[in-house]
């Protein structure tokens, strides 16, 4: 019977823990700060709290003697937090690169049903109709700010491994492209001259592919092209090569067709008018979206996969780390059993003992979380990687270790520390005083 009640008690503890963890993951930063303040107040103001403080102090002062065991908690949790944050930073960086590419002030038009530019075709007539649609902004001399663009995939050798060719997106753009994307800045050389086989290259592409230095010639579609400039945009255009639309279309034998038309809207609010006008036009069968919508959608799939993988890996590692922490703290409690029993014998109650063991573990966990986050931030923040995007060509992006991610990592660390400390803490408090004093 007694065994049964003990079992029930433990089961209750586990259930309580599950609920607490679920609540913890949802908890906003402000509430966490509130909890911390409450805890601090309790520690300083109440009698129990002061007892807890002194017991904790004893525990922490003996940490040095258990440095090997304690470092298991710190490094174990640092590992979990580091891997978790790095993987999430990868997903976030990819999503951010694509999302930044779009804005609400520009719209992209593709053939109906095309998921990406690569699959879309718009003939010459459609291009004109789209550029003349209501809602499109115009330059001072009355020209619509619209760029019919063609996007083809070219093969170029990668830097570092020249034997491997990777896909790069070659975009043929109209004159309006520069006005359309004011964030695209030439950082070296000059813009291409329309009508000539000249290219400007994005800084991401320049980093990833060999032979894209300004002044060099490369072969695309069997013809020599000269790199005359490099540009930076801070978004996914960084991974592209830009050339003149007509010249690119001629080289790839596309005739007068384009793949997308991007327009600047008079205002974000004009999007509804623009879209309605195009959808109502019987000459067209197109999909219209703001560029923000379009590029966010492109990052969705991969970002989700990375997130799932990151969380799965994180959870499995966290389970390993929890048990590592449990092991260490059980050993710590066992080593201090006599001391704890003495405290209990002279009148300390259970709560201060439980809380002090918990505090100690969470302190170590926090240390691990900070360490893991810091290392990840130092190594991976801004780390450049590339993958195959939805246009079947390389998208260069940077890992982004944001404060939110670091905060998530710290929350995980605290949760691991809490679980790892709770059971040993309860064991410490439950230990019958007489046996503990006799046995150890």
């Amino acid at each position, binding site marked *: 019977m007694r065994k049964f009640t003990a079992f029930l008690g433990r089961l209750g503890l586990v259930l309580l823990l599950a609920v607490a963890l679920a609540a913890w993951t949802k908890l906003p930063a402000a509430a966490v700060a509130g909890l911390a303040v409450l805890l601090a107040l309790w520690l300083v103001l109440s009698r129990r709290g002061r007892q807890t403080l002194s017991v904790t102090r004893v525990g922490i002062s003996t940490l040095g003697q258990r440095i*090997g065991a304690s470092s298991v908690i710190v490094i174990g949790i640092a590992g979990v937090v580091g891997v978790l944050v790095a993987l999430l930073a990868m997903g976030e960086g990819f999503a951010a690169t694509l999302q930044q590419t779009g804005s609400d002030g520009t719209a992209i038009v593709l053939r109906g049903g095309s998921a990406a530019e690569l699959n879309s075709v718009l003939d010459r007539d459609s291009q004109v109709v789209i550029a003349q649609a209501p809602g499109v902004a115009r330059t001072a001399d009355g020209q619509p700010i619209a760029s019919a663009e063609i996007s083809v995939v070219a093969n170029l050798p990668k830097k570092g491994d020249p034997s491997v060719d990777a896909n790069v997106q070659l975009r043929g753009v109209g004159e309006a492209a520069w006005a359309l994307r004011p964030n695209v800045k030439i950082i070296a050389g000059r813009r291409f001259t329309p009508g000539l086989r000249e290219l400007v290259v994005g800084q991401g592409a320049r980093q990833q592919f060999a032979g894209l230095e300004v002044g060099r010639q490369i072969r695309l579609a069997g013809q020599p092209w000269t790199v005359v400039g490099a540009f930076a945009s801070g978004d996914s255009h960084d991974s592209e090569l830009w050339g003149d639309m007509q010249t690119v279309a001629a080289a790839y034998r596309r005739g007068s067709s384009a793949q997308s038309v991007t327009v600047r809207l008079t205002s974000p609010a004009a999007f509804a008018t623009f879209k309605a006008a195009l959808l109502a036009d019987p000459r067209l069968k197109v999909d219209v979206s703001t560029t923000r919508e379009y590029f966010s959608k492109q990052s969705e799939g991969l970002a989700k996969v990375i997130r799932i*993988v990151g969380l799965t890996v994180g959870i499995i590692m966290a389970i390993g780390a929890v048990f590592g922490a449990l092991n260490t703290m059980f050993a710590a409690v066992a080593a201090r059993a006599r001391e704890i029993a003495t405290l209990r014998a002279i009148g300390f109650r259970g709560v201060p003992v439980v809380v002090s063991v918990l505090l100690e573990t969470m302190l170590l966990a926090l240390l691990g979380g900070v360490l893991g986050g810091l290392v990840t931030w130092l190594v991976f923040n801004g780390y450049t990687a590339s993958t195959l995007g939805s246009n079947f060509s390389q998208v260069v992006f940077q890992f982004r270790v944001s404060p939110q991610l670091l905060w998530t990592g710290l929350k995980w660390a605290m949760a691991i520390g809490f679980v790892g400390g709770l059971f040993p803490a309860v064991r410490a408090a439950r230990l019958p005083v007489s046996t503990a004093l006799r046995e150890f």
Partner: protein
Amino acid sequence: MKYLHLIWAALFRRKSRTALTLVSIVAAFLLFGMLDAVRTAFDTGSRSAVGVDRLITSSRYSIIQPLPQALGRRIAGVPGVRDVAYANWFGGIYQDPKNFVFSYAVSPNYLDVYPEIQLSPAQREAFRTTRTGAVIGPVLAKKYGWKVGDKVPLQSTIFPQKNGDKTWTFDIVGIYRVGEGAANGLDQLFLMNWKYFDEANLYSRHEIGWYVDRLADPAMADAVARRIDALSANSDHETRTQTEQAFSASFAKQLGDIGLIVSAIMGAVFFTLLLLTGNTMAQAVRERTSELAVLKTIGFSSRSVLAMVLAESVLMLLIGGVLGLGLAAVLAPGVSKGSGGMVNLPPVGAGSWLLGVALMVAIGLVVGALPAWRAMRLNIVDALAGR
């Protein structure tokens, strides 16, 4: 071997501690099993023995550039080429863009070039004679519940039909089996007749995505590839011919350096594991100092004490590791199913098991080394006196 029960008893002397450590080891190797499966999935697409006699000829400039159909006859004439098949990328989706289907329009002799795609003669004949026929892989059939005789509407993300409609309807006329050693992903193809595709689609006329050249002698691959590329040198459709392995490897590489990411994660995991189990072993030996001294007193040599402690840590790693890898083998199909095809985890292969066991033994030895050394150097008198 005769000391096994002794080692076993020592290992489970403190049951809770060993159990906790074991769970950590299980978690580490569970992760290892899954990640290594992912890594090999990206690799073995290219490393099976089947298919060494195939070359892929595609446009040199870009994978999306088509090649002329006439090139096929000229490739067939190259000495060393036994057979030439061709295919086009259809880019099919089923109902929702999320349900991407690997669909190719293939030449009549495509299945001859891929002997690992095994189709019964009757279904083969049906595929040949049904214009709108399609044969599908077993995995695809299972995923969408398609059976022979079903009409399946597939949307092409690239090619509309002549009437502008992007939905093509196919008749499933066969479900093939996949032979030994086939590359990953070969079991979920959707193959349709190239003739139907070419005649009914709006854009491409007699254009080919890529040629598959079957060689008379795999050893001649390089020379034949050069000869094929020479056919179209300086034309407007220059080609690049490479082995099938190199072709698929270049795709995997473009996705990103999967191997690097996986090994970085595993490095972090195993470093932590090393520390954790090392700590446990150190504790275990420290606690048993007097017992070890007794063993030595009754005649165990220093060396056999060393061996026993080492064996203990290796045994611990092996138990946890095998459990973890086993768990990974059980869970992997579940994860693939649960994610709705988003994450496709292949089963844990023999290579992963081998590497895993090697890692277990290695980590076990490293972890046990220091405690075992200490146990070996134990001075009996000091240890018994508790100094």
